[in-house]
């Protein structure tokens, strides 16, 4: 179960040259882990995140997600996989600006083919769990950064995925909100969700139980923190 990457490479063609953003990455993440992926910009961590998040396909290698090979899926199959198994939290929130927080949260359920009434009911419950029950009708631009990110987390959770992908989730937040958001991730991990956090801030990576460092398309270190060793 969980995630298994085997010899994943991802190459881009820039003009005549072929650049390998990932040069053979093998990795295993079990269910319920809280992993931080670190690395400077250009290290390949975003590419890794895209592949882990089923937004992109590797050039070669194998990616088993919940024991299903996803490296060879079509675009639409990948879309369905994202919808069902993965919740995204982005640095810049990526909420739809023209619809309310409530409907933003319910959006993944639209693509899961769930009826409107149930969508809104479920979204209300999730919004309450992130402490935004009173902000349901607000538009994203009426919310603070921390509140927006909580809406985004609620949206990531609504279809009950096993994995939450967070790409620099605190990058646009002040330190107090950052602490709040990281606490939510911690709580979610306690509840058994797999959290994969991409960041370049060591402070943020500290909240994770396992830190993977990437450089030049390769994993250069993979350490599980002492207190979490079994």
């Amino acid at each position, binding site marked *: 179960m969980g995630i298994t990457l085997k010899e994943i490479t991802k190459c881009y063609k820039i003009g005549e040259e072929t650049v390998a953003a990932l040069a053979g990455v093998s990795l295993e993440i079990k269910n319920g882990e809280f992993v931080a992926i670190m690395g400077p910009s250009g290290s390949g961590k975003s590419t890794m995140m895209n592949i882990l998040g089923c937004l*992109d396909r590797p050039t070669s290698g194998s990616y088993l997600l919940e024991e299903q090979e996803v490296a060879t899926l079509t675009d639409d199959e990948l879309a369905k996989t994202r919808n069902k198994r993965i919740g995204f939290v982005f640095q810049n929130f990526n909420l739809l600006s023209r619809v309310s927080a409530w409907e933003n949260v319910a*959006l993944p359920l639209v693509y899961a083919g769930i009826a409107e009434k149930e969508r809104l009911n479920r979204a209300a419950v999730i919004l309450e769990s992130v402490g935004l029950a009173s902000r349901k009708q607000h538009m994203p631009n009426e919310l603070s950064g921390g509140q927006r990110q909580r809406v985004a987390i609620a949206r990531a959770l609504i279809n009950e995925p096993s994995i939450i992908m967070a790409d620099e989730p605190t990058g646009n937040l002040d330190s107090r909100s950052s602490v709040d958001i990281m606490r939510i991730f911690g709580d979610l991990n306690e509840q058994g969700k797999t959290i994969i956090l991409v960041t370049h801030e060591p402070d943020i990576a500290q909240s994770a139980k396992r830190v993977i460092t990437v450089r030049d398309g390769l994993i250069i270190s993979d350490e599980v923190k002492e207190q979490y060793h079994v």
Partner: protein
Amino acid sequence: MFKESIAIALRALLANKLRSILTMLGIIIGVGAVISMVSIGMGVKEKVQNSIASLGSNMLIVTPGAASSQGVRSASGSSITLSLEDAEYIKKTVQGIDYVAPSVSKQYQIIAGNQNWTTTVYGITPEYMAIKSLTVGSGSFVSQQDINSRNRVAVLGATVAENLFGEMNPTGENVRINNTPYLVVGVLDSKGQSSMGQDQDDIVLVPLTTAQERLVGITYLNSISIQVTKMEGMDQAQEQITSLLRQRHKISGTKEDDFTVRNLTSIMAMMTETTGTITLLLGSIGAISLLVGGIGIMNIMMVSVTERTREIGIRKALGATYRDIMLQFLIESVVIGVLGGVFGIFLGIVAAFAISTFGGLNTVISAVSILVPFGFSIAVGLFFGIYPARKAALLDPIEALRYE
């Protein structure tokens, strides 16, 4: 999913009201132009059709065929098989016909006082008036009562009246036809010359039964005129009449008809072609503006897709498939087409009404001339929406999410 896509599309259109309306305007003007232009074309067609109908273009004329005796064939019309019962039977059984007017005719010298005039006397029924578009200037026309009692009454054509009575009103006077007195009950309004150069006012009309039994002394008819309700029904009516008469006259197999059914299709064909060309010309002017409106839709949809690249990226990241995105944008452009079409119909009807009221042109609006442009507006929305929608649906989610 379809329901959601409509909701998403409507919301997007409402978010950019002015832009949506301006885009729609292209379709509104296009549909309005097609409807009003075609209404003018059809108005012209109707007018021409009416004036040609008065010449008898929607008329079928049944005449007796040539009698033949031992291989010797006489002149056409010499057969004596066409009867009043045939005419009545046609009226009863053939569908899509308005009037059936049986008639007999023969030339006689007409005498009134010291004047005389030789002309054709027609034995007719009251339906003859409608079928030939005749109007009575003074007095009355031949009535059913006259037919039933074989009255010796006559209705004079304008030329005959003038030659026999000059300035005097002949109504109530007597004329002698074949040395028998007839009471003049009415005078026809002048119809002028026919398209063949015949003086249509040089006639005298008497009741059919009077003519058959008291004047000419025959039991058959010289012709049956049949007015068909619709031009389109001409061929069908002609066929029905032919088979009916063959049956009644007991003509079977390949034996030749003892009658002829003629029509004035050449005039009709010419008219249809001319007015068809006019309608086509006017309609295509409108169609071009509809096309331009469609390009407007495509233009705005392209802008909209670019503008909402990020939204598309978000939707795709959250699980929207190719079909979901395609549907969302396609419905948006179809909604523009549909709404534009609806408003365009109103504009077109108002314009057609204004043209006929203030422009003095005859305009005709039919269900087809509304529904076809409406259908086209939807098709235009669909067609010109495909490319932008496809572009949106094919966006790479990573690129789209990164788009600023």
